[in-house]
């Protein structure tokens, strides 16, 4: 094989890569959605008045953050069925990504919450607000703009981690490129295109995140 770029080939495989891109975006989006919600729950879970729960959560989350995502994907995919939970590759992948990134997002939320001035909590108590209202109406609305840059970075991160799902057979971009490569014995175009697609999607997203942070700050009058 020599270096020779065939444009015909590119147009030939383009539709397949486009479909795979959509699949990748869907995978990233779903995983992110799970992580956003689960991450908030885990962050709030570390602020209850039961120190045991806080300790368990903190240690578990640190474990998840310190170990490779690809290994966690394998673990969930293979162990799941063995304890009676049948999982398709897609679902196993979603759960693994969602769980892994919720551990990171929990940290981001935590930092945002801690950044809200103590006086805000005291004003809520002086007004006799419930804990739920205090979080939902006063603390989190101030914590989230602080957390947006971190949250945005992890969105880009999840997107770039979707190729790991290829190892359990999810048809995202990497898997499709591999498949094309082994079918046609041409790796140059597929792999390069995959790289280009990632760049084309992640760079603007990072820019959008910065924009979103500015807009949110202005809208919340802060």
């Amino acid at each position, binding site marked *: 094989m020599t270096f020779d770029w065939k444009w015909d080939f590119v147009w030939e495989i383009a539709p397949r890569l486009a479909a795979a891109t959509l699949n990748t975006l869907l995978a990233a989006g779903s995983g992110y959605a799970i992580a956003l919600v689960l991450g908030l729950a885990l962050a709030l879970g570390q602020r209850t008045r039961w120190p045991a729960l806080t300790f368990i959560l903190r240690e578990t989350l640190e474990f998840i953050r310190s170990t490779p995502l690809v290994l966690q994907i394998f673990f969930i995919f293979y162990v799941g069925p063995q304890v009676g939970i049948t999982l398709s590759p897609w679902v196993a992948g979603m759960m693994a990504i969602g769980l892994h990134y919720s551990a990171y997002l929990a940290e981001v939320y935590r930092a945002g919450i801690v950044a809200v*001035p103590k*006086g*805000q909590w*005291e*004003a809520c*108590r*002086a*007004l*006799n*607000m*419930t804990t739920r*209202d205090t979080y939902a*109406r*006063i603390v989190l*609305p*101030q914590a989230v703009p602080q957390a947006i840059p971190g949250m945005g970075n992890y969105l880009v991160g999840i997107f770039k981690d979707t190729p790991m799902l290829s190892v359990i057979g999810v048809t995202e971009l990497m898997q499709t490129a591999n498949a094309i490569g082994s079918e046609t014995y041409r790796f140059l175009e597929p792999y390069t295109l995959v790289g280009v697609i990632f760049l084309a999607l992640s760079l603007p997203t990072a820019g959008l995140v910065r924009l979103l942070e500015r807009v949110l700050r202005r809208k*919340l*009058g*802060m």
Partner: protein
Amino acid sequence: MELSAYPLELPPDDRPMVRFMNVTKSYGSLVVLDDLNLDIQRGEMVSVIGPSGSGKTTVLRMLMTLESINGGVIYIDGKPLTHMERKGVLVPADEAHLRRMRASIGMCFQHFNLFPHMTALQNCMEGPVQVLGLSKAEARDRSEELLKMVGMIDKKDQHPSRLSGGQQQRVAIARALAMRPRIMLFDEVTSALDPEVIGEVTEVIRRLVAEHDLTMLMVTHQMGFARDISDRICLFYKGKIEEQAAPEQFFTNPQRERTQQFLRAVKDAD
């Protein structure tokens, strides 16, 4: 005194609005309030003064349940604040009891603590709608009336970041009053203000005292103001009340040595 030795309720003929009974508060080995006994009658305006570290702010914060109590009992209108009855004796209160008791008490802070993502009006409406269950319309009427009273009605749709310190503090007072508390606490509400706007805030408090029947407790460094509007001045020193008296008596004829020292030091600072 053992917790079980405290009355479950104060008798109807001896029921001040606020009573601190043998109250102690310490942070580790540091004792901030030392066996404090203090009564505040209905409708009274009491100013609490003293050097920093004397425990005066802690008194307010404990009333607002921002600090826990280590010993003794606080009674609000005869009922214990942070304790409740269980099987005939007093035990530490649960959250439900605390919330019921807290409803009578409002507080204004040195650094205002307005909600930055809400307008002045929304700040005032928040408590009545979310906590008291008022309709938005009722809450708006009440809030606008109060903002009018503190002179901030034309800024009702502004966010705190666009208001001066004095303006923010006035909104904060309106916000606290919107909850119709029976007891109002003012924690050094002018200490963070530029001198030229202190007057706007003291004016509002002055009118509150004159026109309303609220029980008020104020920690302040503004001696002249305290003298003008208070029913009683209380000097704290190292967690205990050093001296308390009506303003005229307190400022013209202080009895205790430390009071005289304090008043001299304050006068020199003017």
